[in-house]
């Protein structure tokens, strides 16, 4: 115990740095996947078969294969197979590759949630808008969007919480997120070696962060409770 207390400042500093990386990946994934998911959702609902089928095919592939493999493919495929290492081997390259893989993966999951949300708004809402002389975009933004958001907040919350934990998968391509930061004390780093507790300790970061996220999303859900 005494040893742990002595190691604590060094470990915390390391974990904090790792957590900042985790946070960056988390935020950029959301920023990318929210809009991209909507685009994919519209694609998978398109009346144009040439758009609908390929989109659904891609969603099927992405949802049907492990994110870990997708990370490996995104990171290594350009360099090892195409002999065009677009990402480079440095930390920035690993980070960029992670962000790209996560955005693609999560956008596909989000698209299915969006699709469910859009299709759950009764057709009568659209017809009422049309009869009142509204344009399609007015109907989407002024009538359907909020109803859709209300319906997708609970399933979206699940995905967001899963994403917080999934960011740890980026460890597989050497992205220096919090798991990586905890794990390095096993081999040895800054005079600490053979310590596994820092790795276990990372769980606390995830737990607290997810607690905050759940609270915020719960508030949002409450806020949307004013209508049914």
């Amino acid at each position, binding site marked *: 115990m005494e040893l742990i207390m002595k190691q604590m400042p060094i470990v915390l500093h390391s974990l904090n740095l790792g957590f900042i990386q985790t946070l960056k990946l988390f935020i950029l994934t959301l920023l990318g996947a929210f809009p991209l998911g909507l685009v994919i959702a519209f694609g998978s609902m398109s009346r144009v078969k040439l758009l609908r089928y390929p989109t659904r095919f891609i969603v099927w592939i992405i949802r049907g294969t492990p994110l870990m493999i997708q990370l490996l493919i995104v990171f290594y495929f350009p360099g090892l197979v195409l002999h065009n290492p677009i990402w480079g081997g440095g930390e920035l390259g690993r980070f960029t590759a992670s962000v790209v893989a996560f955005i693609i993966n999560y956008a596909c999951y989000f698209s299915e949630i969006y699709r469910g949300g859009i299709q759950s708004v*009764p057709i*009568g*809402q659209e*017809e*009422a*808008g*049309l*009869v*009142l*002389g*509204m*344009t399609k975009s*007015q109907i989407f933004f*002024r*009538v359907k969007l*909020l*109803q859709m958001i*209300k319906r997708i907040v609970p399933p979206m919350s699940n995905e967001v919480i899963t994403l917080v934990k999934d960011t740890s998968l980026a460890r597989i391509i050497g992205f220096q997120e919090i798991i990586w930061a905890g794990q390095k004390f096993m081999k040895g780093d800054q005079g600490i070696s053979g310590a596994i507790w820092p790795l276990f300790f990372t769980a606390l970061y995830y737990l607290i962060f997810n607690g905050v996220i759940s609270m915020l999303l719960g508030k949002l859900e409450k806020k949307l409770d*004013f*209508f*049914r």
Partner: protein
Amino acid sequence: MTILDVQHISKSFHQTEVLKDISFSLQQGQVLSIIGSSGSGKTTLLRCLNFLETPDRGVIRVKDETLFDADDPMTQKPSEIRRKRLHFGLVFQSFNLFPQYTAIENVMLARTLLEKGDPSYKSRKKQILEEIRSQAEGLMEQMGLTNRMNNYPHQLSGGQCQRVAIARALALQPDILCFDEPTSALDPELTGEVLKVIRGLAEKKTTMIIVTHEMAFARDVANHVIFMDDGRILEQGEPTEVFGNTKEERTRQFLARFQNEQI
């Protein structure tokens, strides 16, 4: 003055012909009731008038403007349809109020969006918005909903919701207001308040087309009655004719089912 002239409208869904050669006309300030059993095409007819469905054949004229002619693609430009729709208002069976807006916001929304397209909107914004609000307040008062204006739809009874929906349709001042079974989704105790509002509109000479299963109401409020059966107009005329001096056997059968409701 003839405000609406419908000529030879036909409409099929896949192989099923839902409307077969429908023709009728409507005078300004008159009320037309459309009766008939479920599946006879009444709702589809209203939806054609409101451009929610496109007829396969036929012509629709309002105030001498040809809104739709199946043989003339120039009348079917999507960009024009939005403007043409405004000749008609439609009150749905299931209200279709926008749940995230209060009652009065439901009434104001469409007109506010419409005015935004006006070039002078920016310079007269405040005045326009005040105008829209005072019109909406007037309509809510007319519907007897002054103390319910700021409630959300889920806080209102079905009858109140339907009255908001009527106010919402009236806010755009349509030439012809259409009702698609406005009381069919209501508890029997609540139909009265909605029918009373529609009667009030009839007294004010609002041009209306009402699809309804309330036979007594159809007879009392209408100047003209159409009986539809299997996509056709089987019988039409003044209410006293259709109800009192029924010509067709099919109409008689249909009306007989409502006899015990004391027509």
